[in-house]
């Protein structure tokens, strides 16, 4: 997963400024930076969720598996690139139907095939044991942390290669947050994970690589520094990264 000289505009406003990055596969890459620095907009570029906003234009390229996402069929792209949102957003359907939603869209019709996918996905999302007794209760009746793991299961069910997580734990309590973080660690064996977080401790705990973003004088988001998490948090090469990491602003 990579971008080259990628810029994004909301109408006439430049929100991302010529970002180039190479995100390693099967690792967790965290995007940190103060609010409004464009990390969420950047994350949403990989599955083209920004397309939904009227007036968005881009320059440069975003590539997955060496192919420009702009040239791909958006349905196939989003099948390949799953997403987990800031607020848990299970559909007002049963646990089963939530997880089966994606596979059904992509053509799995057979009930027993669906049941297999649902079980596998819920197990991978570490939710199976908590819901297996009643897969037909509403996804909305679960706790916040369970709902978020249900959303992860829902994303996994279409067998993506990449999972984008947009502050996935910011609406959760510390215990539920820890569970999500443990889960991410298990998932990285099979998926490339990119996570946006405003929580530096979280970035330090879960990620292998960290990208630090900051707005310039025109309020456009820039990539300041990218490296292994260890390097970014111990020996940052840019003073702005150091200032942010040490809590001097942000």
């Amino acid at each position: 997963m990579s971008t080259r000289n990628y810029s994004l505009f909301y109408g006439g406003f430049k929100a991302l400024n010529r970002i180039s990055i190479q995100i390693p596969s099967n690792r967790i890459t965290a995007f940190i930076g103060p609010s409004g620095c464009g990390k969420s907009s950047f994350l949403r570029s990989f599955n083209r969720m920004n397309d939904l906003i009227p007036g968005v234009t881009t320059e440069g390229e975003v590539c997955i598996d060496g192919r420009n996402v702009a040239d791909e069929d958006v349905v196939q792209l989003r099948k390949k690139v799953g997403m987990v949102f800031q607020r848990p957003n299970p559909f007002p359907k049963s646990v089963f139907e939530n997880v089966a939603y994606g596979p059904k869209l992509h053509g799995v019709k057979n009930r027993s095939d669906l049941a297999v996918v649902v079980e596998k996905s819920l197990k991978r999302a570490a939710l199976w044991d908590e819901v297996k007794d009643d897969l037909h209760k509403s996804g909305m009746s679960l706790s916040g942390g369970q709902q978020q793991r249900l959303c992860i299961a829902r994303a996994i069910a279409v067998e993506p290669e990449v999972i984008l997580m947009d502050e996935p734990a910011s609406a959760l309590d510390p215990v539920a947050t820890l569970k999500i973080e443990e889960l991410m660690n298990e998932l990285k064996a099979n998926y490339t994970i990119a996570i946006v977080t405003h929580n530096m401790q979280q970035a330090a705990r879960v990620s292998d690589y960290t990208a630090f973003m900051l707005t310039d004088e025109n309020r456009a988001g820039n990539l300041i520094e990218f490296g292994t998490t260890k390097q970014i948090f111990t020996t940052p090469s840019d003073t702005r990264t150091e200032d942010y990491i040490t809590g001097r602003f942000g």
Partner: protein
Amino acid sequence: MNRRKLSQNAAFSLFWAAGIMSVLIMAVVVGYVLVKGLPGISFDFFTTSPRGGLSGEGGIYSTIVTTFYLVVVTLAFAIPPGVGAAVYFSEYSGSTVGSLTGKLVNLARFGVDTLAGVPSIVFGLFGYAVFVTAMNLGFSILSASMAGACLIIPVIIRTTEDALESVPSGYREGSLALGANRWETTWKVVLPAAFRGISTGILLSAGRIVSETAIFFVTLGGSYRVPHSLMSGGRTMALHVYYLAMETRAFDRAMSTAAVLVGLVVVMNLGINTITGRITGKQR
């Protein structure tokens, strides 16, 4: 301190009195209709048709049938374009902001809001001129239901749009992010989530058809016979109340019919309450 307490007490008393007043008015009106009307209601009242003429003899069987047909046919005409337009406004028109289509959408929205405030007799006149006369459909359930559909489509559009817009955007994002297109998202996630709100709007519209008179006076005619096709005229219960009260001596039967109408409205409102109650119950 004392002054503040005094004004607080005064305000409280005023609001309390206003609350009591509104309940009282409703109780008196409904109570009067029920007291006057209930004694005239019997099994025969529901199963025999009005006999016509000045005496106002007979029951309300044919008016129940007519009301039922009219509601069903009107809803059949009004729901598809009403819900469809609302889906377009809420789910599809977002990407048209600023373009010519966007301006047309705004114009259409303005039109819907205006139509929702137009008095029903205007739709009646329109129906009389176009459906009854120009299209030569005569006083019929077909004419009346098309006029009625014009009346309730704005209501259905507005309530459906409200229902759709109260669906959290997270549902849409979640669905789109899984590779669903707009239509799949609308059909499989948004519409089911808005189902209760939409049915509330439809029930309210059905109530409107049950209770309107003027619009049907000029499109449905006033036949007291049981309708046998879409081309039959007829009279709804509300219209029957009007005819009985104004053109016969059977004021007591008008009251009885009104009592049945009140009962029907209560049942429909209970239905709406059940639906909306479930909303608040289920969505925590």
